[in-house]
């Protein structure tokens, strides 16, 4: 979490083994399943709001919207249950597994490193710092644009799901209150769609930053999310 600690850890290990085990298997598995679920959710969600061109022939021979909605709901269950599992792992996993759930906002050192990272991305710093997990800037972005937003998407999403599932369904009992609280069904639909756009925009940044850091910071990022090991190239 802190650059100094991580640097020490990295250097100590780096000199000897040049790699550290960061992401445990459940975190890696969740990451890729979650990524796939998000792609399915975004694409199907887009076409639920603005459907594809009308289908020819008899209604009985088609079930296009039905399949699109099925895929959306199935992926939503995977996304939601995955998120619950990931929160569980934040409690039992290693300290890197907790990073995207809590920010050390009272630590001035952490804040100064957030600004260091900002300068690094603005080309104002010549050499990057090395981190075992997320860098503080990435952690901050992850917290707001993934963790908080994902919880919001689960709440609004399952609230909308409860409208079709009916009064008394578990989704209605757990999340039905969201609809009047946010100003009605139409508004919740709109906010849910806006959330999709924010998450997809963040996904662009996330993928770009991962590829860039993999090249520029001389430490592995993408392969780390596959193998779990962070390799340091010097």
């Amino acid at each position, binding site marked *: 979490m802190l650059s100094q600690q991580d640097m020490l850890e990295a250097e100590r290990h780096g000199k000897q083994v040049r790699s550290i085990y960061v992401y445990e298997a459940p975190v890696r598995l969740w990451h890729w399943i979650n990524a796939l679920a998000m792609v399915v959710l975004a694409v199907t969600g887009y076409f639920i709001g603005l*459907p594809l061109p*009308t289908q020819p022939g008899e209604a009985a021979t088609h079930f*296009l*919207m039905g399949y699109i909605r099925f895929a959306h709901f199935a992926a939503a269950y995977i996304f939601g249950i995955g998120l619950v599992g990931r929160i569980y792992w934040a409690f039992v996993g290693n300290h890197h597994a907790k990073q995207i759930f809590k920010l050390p906002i009272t630590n001035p050192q952490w804040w100064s490193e957030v600004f260091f990272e900002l300068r690094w991305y603005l080309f104002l710093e010549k050499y990057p710092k090395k981190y075992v997990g997320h860098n503080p800037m990435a952690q901050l972005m992850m917290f707001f644009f993934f963790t908080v937003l994902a919880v919001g998407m689960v709440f609004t999403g399952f609230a909308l799901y409860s409208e079709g599932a009916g*009064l008394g369904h578990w989704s209605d009992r757990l999340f039905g209150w969201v609809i009047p609280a946010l100003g009605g*069904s139409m*508004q919740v639909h709109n906010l849910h769609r806006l959330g*999709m756009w924010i998450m997809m925009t963040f996904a662009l940044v996330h993928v770009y930053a991962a590829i*860039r850091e993999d090249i520029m910071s001389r430490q592995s990022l993408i392969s780390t999310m596959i193998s779990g090991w962070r390799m340091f190239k010097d």
Partner: protein
Amino acid sequence: MTETFYEVLRRQGITRRSFLKFCSLTATSLGLGSAAAPRIAHALENKPRTPVLWLHGLECTCCSESFIRSAHPLTKDVVLSMLSLDYDDTLMAAAGHQAEAILDEVKKKYKGNYIVAVEGNPPLNEDGMFCIQGGRPFVEKLRETCADAKAIISWGACASYGCVQAAKPNPTRATPVHKVITDKPIINVPGCPPIAEVMTGVVTYMLTFDRIPELDRQGRPKMFYGQRIHDKCYRRGHFDAGQFAEAWDDEGARKGYCLYKMGCKGPTTYNACSSMRWNGGVSWPVQSGHGCIGCSEEGFWDKGSFYDRVTDIKAFGVEANADSIGKAAAGTVGAAIAAHAAVTALARARQKAGESASTSEEQKGEK
């Protein structure tokens, strides 16, 4: 002594046969099964009529218009002639001081035992001066009349949510009844207007069972507002198949395809239109080829166009829809990433050039 419903019905020349028919039809429309019909009959035969005071605030009287068209053969007789509707300024014969005196009389005689039905809502700005009745603000009359009531029925979108007079910027500060009267059970019966049979159904339920119907989170009777228009729509098959009308005059519109793309609010509107329909089951908006406008939903005037699916989000000072905001954000960020990547590549190339010029030992020492 007040008469029972049955006594009044018979006095009005309604046969026992018609009366029993009404009871069984009411049981069916409430979804109660045949065993409930005798219970309804028993209640109407034995219970003294509950007085109903019908107040009108800021409204257009469309609720009354709907109510008096209740198509059931006997409902309009029962509710207009037989229901002890002791006060309703648009329907009653009395006028002036004579009319206003009835309010006081019922309040005293049936303390805690009468129902107040409110059509429209009170404006609160300028001490309620935007709606004056009998020489004083409506809000005062509403507060006084409701003080000793057993329960309150909020008729229509006006009383339940505010409707058009509460739409932004709401200059008179028209306020739904449940935000003014907070200490009484309130039944919201939204719609602009509500379906006639829903209105008579709610009243009949309350008189029969002597309790208010089961309500959802927004205070609406679950039996009529438990499902969306979309869930019971006869065009739902076309929705699931992906068959939509894409213009008002295209092939899809003629074939009766789903009106989702034309902005139908059926999927976001809770009401009984698609199952009970209007004017005695003759038709309803979607059947006549126009999408639902969501008139029974809170603030439906302020929720964007009636003809868009992805409507404007009017929050945080933004008036744009999710797609235009999202595409602008994704486009800007995408361009920024491309620019950032280009600068990175340039800086890296320059650094590499510098590295080969200076000795590699120096570079390592610096790190």
